[in-house]
């Protein structure tokens, strides 16, 4: 399958990228690793007239320490993120979830920011970013702005990123050692997208749960938090886990496809959330 014709320009900085996007407007797309975009081009589901390649923009690569946060460059590959020492030390949940994205070849080329900017609710990273309360730094013609993960995902494959915007970096909070985590990804074969995924981040203290954050993958047109479960778990003893996780699908309208009907997805969300919370607590 051959993509429709387009022009290609490689930029050396974020400013150049914004400028190039400004010139070409709606018809331009940002290319980083290309592992979300190139499959769409080949299937001719996307028809940009210009690709702006940010894959070699140094300021968009790597992970740096920023006090109580880590800052991950959007064009850092999955493989670089999952093996990064800062990530492993301060936010090991990221390493764990990223290690389940695609397969090794995909992780060598695909980028952390690309997996988020693509906005696919079946992808693993949107729910991760949402559960972490990550902040996205976006560069556009009006300068840079911060957008909370909870405001970023608009609809299926749609985010707040405008035609002239570039996702530059992702800020994530460092998590102390009192946080446990677990991601339950349910799929039929190793490299497939999640039919449903549930990510649990749980802060423990002496037999009870201080705080829980649950991110759901592929349970709607955007990634979701299992808010009812989070509220039921906050400050509760571990005895309530099963009841709390029974509320994991509350308020969701999951998609239907060949793999699962909506009610089956809701069932999976409840079961996977319980497993994720139990594993996150070390059970």
């Amino acid at each position, binding site marked *: 399958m051959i*993509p429709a014709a*387009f022009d290609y320009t*490689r930029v050396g900085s974020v400013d150049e990228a914004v400028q190039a996007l400004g010139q070409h407007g709606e018809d331009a797309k940002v290319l980083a690793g290309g592992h979300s975009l190139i499959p769409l081009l080949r*299937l001719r589901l996307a028809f940009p007239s210009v690709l702006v390649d940010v894959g070699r923009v140094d300021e968009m690569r790597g992970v740096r320490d920023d006090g109580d946060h880590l800052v991950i460059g959007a064009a850092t590959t999955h*493989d670089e993120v999952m093996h990064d020492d800062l990530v492993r030390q301060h936010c090991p949940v990221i390493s764990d979830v990223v290690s389940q994205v695609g*397969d090794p070849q*995909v992780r060598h*080329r695909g980028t952390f920011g690309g997996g988020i900017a693509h906005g696919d609710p079946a992808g693993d990273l949107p729910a991760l970013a949402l559960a972490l309360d990550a902040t996205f730094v976006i560069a556009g013609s009006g300068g840079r702005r911060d957008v909370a993960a909870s405001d970023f995902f608009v609809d299926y494959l749609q985010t707040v990123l405008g035609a002239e915007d570039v996702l530059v970096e992702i800020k994530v909070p460092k998590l102390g050692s009192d946080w446990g985590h677990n991601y339950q990804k349910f799929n039929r074969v190793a490299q497939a997208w999640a039919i449903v995924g549930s990510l649990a981040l749980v802060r423990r203290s002496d037999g009870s749960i201080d705080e829980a954050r649950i991110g759901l993958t592929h349970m709607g047109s955007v990634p979701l938090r299992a808010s009812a479960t989070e509220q039921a778990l906050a400050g509760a003893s571990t005895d309530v886990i099963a009841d709390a996780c029974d509320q994991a699908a509350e308020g969701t309208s999951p998609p239907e496809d060949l793999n699962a009907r909506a009610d089956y997805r809701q069932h999976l969300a409840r079961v996977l959330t319980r497993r994720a919370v139990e594993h996150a607590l070390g059970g």
Partner: protein
Amino acid sequence: MPRISVTVDGVTYEDDVEPRLLLVYYLRERLGLTGTNVGCDTSNCGACTVLFNGRSAKSCTILAAQADGAEVTTIQGLARNGEWHPLQKAFNAEHGLQCGYCTPGMIMASVDLLEHNDDPTDEEVRHGLEGNLCRCTGYQNIVKAVRAAAGEVREGATS
């Protein structure tokens, strides 16, 4: 049209490429390196796997334009002085193939795997090759071949 300079199996090429040209078609049709196969063309099967700047990558999901300045190794660049790479020998000896279509990609993905883990368990091999599909389902002997090659690579490193 972007002009690229790319080193493939040790030879540097300079070419003008159409932006939409995928690396795998550049390798096969422009350079005639047909050892790298196109399987699914949907980033799933891994038949087109090459080493891209030393790491395994699916050449159907890379634009030739992105390969400017890159070093690419295909299955045809693995042998040294006419002698097969330990993985090529092991896939032969252990019968790690049936129809052989996935083999170039399996071997290139395994080169990367062994470079980062020279003594993988069966499970680590299976996990490490999850980006490569064998539709003959000949996985058992593929795993045996990779582990056999790992032994040879380790011996080669110590001798």
